[in-house]
């Protein structure tokens, strides 16, 4: 058990089976393989990198805790998204305006060119518009637009019906279209 093997070629269900037997190296591989999507979803939902990383860490610890009961009936990523979605919906909302400035990469540096400033402002506008959405609409938009999940996959990740997912997406994109009309036409 103390020897390190190259597990990067193993698929997710196999890694989960090894993890259920106590192979922590498998957990490390799963983290490296999926942390980008987990952190990305958490960051876009919460708006703060530190909170997103805390949430992501907790998500992977839940993966560990559930390893012995995990059954590969759905794609591992979908199952992982369900954990992340639940954590997002349970997360305490922190002030997002402060988070936007805290995460501003240009703060304190040399003023960037005009186009870069416009791009940053657009990015902030998008972030603000998404994070102003009601929680369920925000979740489905993040999963649909940024994580590339289909309606069916979103339904699996959220345990909501496909009809509910469809309705949430319609309302979310409608709101976003209104709030980002200026940027969308530029």
């Amino acid at each position, binding site marked *: *058990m103390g020897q390190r093997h190259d597990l990067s070629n193993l698929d997710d269900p196999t890694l989960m089976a090894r*993890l*259920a*037997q*106590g192979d*922590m190296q498998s*957990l*490390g591989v799963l*983290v*490296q393989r999926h*942390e980008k999507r987990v*952190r*990305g979803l958490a*960051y*876009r939902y919460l708006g703060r*990198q530190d909170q997103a*990383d805390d949430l*992501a*860490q907790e998500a*992977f*610890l839940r993966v*560990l*805790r559930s*390893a*012995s009961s995990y059954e590969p009936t759905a794609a591992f990523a979908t199952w992982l998204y369900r954990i992340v979605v639940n954590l997002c919906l349970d997360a305490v909302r922190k002030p997002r305006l402060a988070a936007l400035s805290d*995460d501003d*990469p240009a703060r304190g540096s040399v003023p960037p060119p005009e186009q870069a400033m416009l*791009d940053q402002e*657009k*990015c902030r506008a*998008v*972030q603000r518009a*998404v994070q102003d959405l009601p929680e369920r609409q925000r979740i489905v*938009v993040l999963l*649909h*637009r*940024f994580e590339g999940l*289909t*309606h069916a996959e979103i339904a699996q990740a959220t345990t909501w019906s496909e009809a509910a997912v*469809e309705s949430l*997406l*319609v309302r979310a*994109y*409608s709101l*976003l*279209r209104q709030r*980002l009309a200026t*940027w*969308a*036409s530029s």
Partner: protein
Amino acid sequence: MGRLTLWSIMCLDDPILIKLIANELSDAQRGDAQAHLAACPLCRARCDELRATWDVLGEWDVPEPAHSLAPAVLQAARGRNWTWTPMRLAAAIALAAGTGALLALNVPRQPAPPVVSARTVAPDQVVQALGLDALGSQPALGDVFAETQEDL
């Protein structure tokens, strides 16, 4: 979902437009939708607005994290590992046994019985201590008992 057979009569609804832009429609469905859009300026305008929103959303970049979470996750996992394997269970039992043994070794000892030398005790005291006086006879202790010392 089958072909969009009513596309020539009714406009495309929002769910269809969303799936079209997200590339979730089958080839046949996409063909039907695009044929309708070519003939319907109203749906074409709605589709263009939705696509523009889709594109501007895509400009929201997430900052690339400076480091992987793997070391922190593994460290946290070591702190609260719920999985029990035969090896870990054996280690836990061994630890419990070792702890029990350590506790036993640390139990305060009974005070050692005093060192007794027959030379310092009178024979009749020995008889009384051994309960021999109840037997009614007193052996010649000085001949029977050698010097004894109990060292514990």
